[in-house]
């Protein structure tokens, strides 16, 4: 129920912005007083309110004012502004609390914060809470107006110099157009985005488009699949570790959160993240600091997190498998990638795109689907979504000798591709085998240490190795491990359990 309410609130807001965009397309500018954009100024200093009001009114904006956070919330309930401009330090409710309260009911409302004495931690916290801009007092007129215009996306120079949002995403459907419109609105800020959708719908493509349209575009975009990495390795991959933090940690490892500093970290299949790591991630999102495994020191990080899953995360929360506090922290703006079956009108454009791409890659003539083949593909169920469609096109173009791909080939390729989806048991077995190889590698084939990491006793571990036809000796390099700086660590000397070592 709560989720539905939030969803409709977003829709209402996006319609509001849709009007703004249409106004812009129709040539309605900020000096058009017949349809002025409303800005709510919140400050307990009447001189500041008067100054900001004069500047904004002089540029064609309509102004509402409030002298406290409580009054601002009351005004927001009565009349919806297009942007909020608030002081950080005020009597009673401060600007940060006001920002949270506004975004709790209206996550896409642009809020600009003004402060005379904020430090970097406050600015970073505000950025992560989805602030549109953070300005220091005394502010100059031009700075204020350009930031308000930017928050409202009214600046023509920005529109002209930027590439179209999600330029690489192929679509004609209304469902995708609406999704991309919402995604573009949140791209500019640091607001936390959560993408849901079936496997193969292109959640990572959307996350990349958001990153590319954000001020972080020149910094790294790092994606990690939380479901594909065992817990111990995932912890180390995300948070990093110090040398000797646990058995097999022969070198210091920075971790992906630090590697993505200044940029975006995409956490795919977040629903598969173990509960223990969820607590650690929550701390990072709250404090903007990361503490590598085995370290006593926290390192500040400035990372925008975009997460995604194919699961119904609200249900996972109900089952107690996902932390509710983390869920709400991640799910500030939910975006849902429609399945291919929900956007069938995009299939012809997608087929054409993949046919074109393959022809270019192979430096060959572009092939086409016969009309009945196209009709068949349009009506197919596509459980594997765009990824499956891409594979089908690849298969058809490879196996067809002529320029036209016939219906029989389309049918056969779709059958083949569907058959290619593994059963759960096969997938689980493959995962287990990869996991065992992973722990044997990092322990150099030391069974006792590997079993300890895996949380099994040695007998069980040997049984698992036998089931997967793995031999621990194949991973050994003579008992002592060569490190990069030519020192050696005797793994047998590492007697402490993993958890104790991490507390060092």
């Amino acid at each position, binding site marked *: 129920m709560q989720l539905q309410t939030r969803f409709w609130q977003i829709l209402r807001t996006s319609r509001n912005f849709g009007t703004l965009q249409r106004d812009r397309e129709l040539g309605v500018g900020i000096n058009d007083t017949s349809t002025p954009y409303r800005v709510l100024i919140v400050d307990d*200093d*009447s*001189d*500041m309110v*008067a*100054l900001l009001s*004069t*500047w904004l009114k*002089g540029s064609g904006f309509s102004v509402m004012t409030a002298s406290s956070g409580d009054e601002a919330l009351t005004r927001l309930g009565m009349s919806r502004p297009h942007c909020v401009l608030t*002081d950080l*330090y005020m009597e009673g409710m401060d600007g940060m609390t006001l920002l949270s309260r506004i975004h709790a009911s209206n996550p896409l409302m642009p809020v600009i914060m*003004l402060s*005379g*004495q904020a430090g970097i931690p406050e600015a970073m916290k505000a950025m992560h809470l989805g602030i549109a801009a953070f300005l220091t*007092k*005394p*502010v*100059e*007129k031009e700075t204020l107006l350009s930031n308000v215009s930017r928050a409202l996306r009214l600046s023509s120079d920005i529109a002209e110099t930027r590439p179209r949002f999600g330029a690489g995403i192929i679509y004609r459907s209304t469902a995708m157009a609406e999704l991309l419109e919402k995604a573009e609105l949140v791209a500019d800020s640091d607001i936390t985005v959560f993408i849901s959708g079936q496997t193969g719908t292109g959640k990572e493509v959307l996350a990349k488009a958001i990153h590319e349209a954000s001020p972080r575009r020149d910094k790294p975009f790092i994606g990690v699949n939380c479901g594909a990495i065992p817990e111990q390795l995932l912890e180390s991959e995300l948070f990093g570790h110090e040398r000797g933090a646990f058995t097999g940690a022969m070198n210091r490892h920075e971790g992906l959160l630090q590697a993505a500093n200044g940029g975006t970290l995409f956490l795919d299949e977040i629903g598969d993240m173990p509960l223990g790591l969820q607590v650690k991630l929550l701390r990072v999102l709250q404090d903007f600091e990361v503490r590598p495994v085995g370290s006593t020191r926290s390192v500040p990080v400035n990372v925008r997190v975009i997460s995604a899953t194919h699961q119904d995360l609200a249900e996972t929360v109900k089952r107690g498998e996902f932390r509710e506090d983390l869920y709400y922290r991640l799910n500030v703006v939910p975006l849902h990638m429609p399945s291919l079956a929900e956007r069938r009108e995009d299939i012809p454009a997608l087929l054409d795109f993949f046919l074109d791409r393959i022809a270019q890659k192979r430096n060959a003539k572009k092939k086409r689907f016969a009309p009945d083949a196209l009709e068949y593909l349009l009506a197919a169920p596509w459980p594997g979504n765009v990824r499956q469609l891409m594979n089908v096109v690849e298969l058809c173009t490879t196996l067809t000798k002529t320029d036209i791909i016939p219906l029989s080939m389309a049918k056969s390729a779709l059958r083949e591709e569907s058959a290619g989806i593994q059963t759960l048991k096969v997938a689980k077995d493959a995962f287990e085998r990869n996991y065992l190889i992973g722990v044997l590698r990092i322990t150099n084939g030391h069974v006792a240490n590997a079993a300890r990491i895996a949380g099994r006793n040695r007998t069980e571990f040997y049984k698992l190795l036998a089931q997967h036809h793995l031999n621990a000796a194949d991973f050994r390099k003579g008992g002592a491990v060569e490190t990069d700086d030519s020192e050696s660590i005797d793994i047998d000397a590492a007697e402490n359990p993993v958890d104790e070592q991490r507390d060092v």
Partner: protein
Amino acid sequence: MVQVTVDKDLEDLVPGFLSNRQRDIEKVEALLARGDFDGIRIIGHSMKGSGGGYGFQFITEVGAGLERAAIACNTDLIRNALSELRHYLAQIEIVYR
């Protein structure tokens, strides 16, 4: 005389802004008599934030000094800041452009 150039759009607001600063001097003196340094800090902070925007950078600087002095509970520095502000307000000549 100290000549200050101010945005013509602010012409209607400036007299009120400056008279509020005169009132600030009286308020700070009263707060100082009561030893209410937090109240003085808030006034200094407010002056710091608005002065430059109106075109009076000096008021921003005095406000910042007042804020720092209030945090340090330094009565002498507060009195100095008030004296500077009083002198400035008596000296300025405003040109609107």
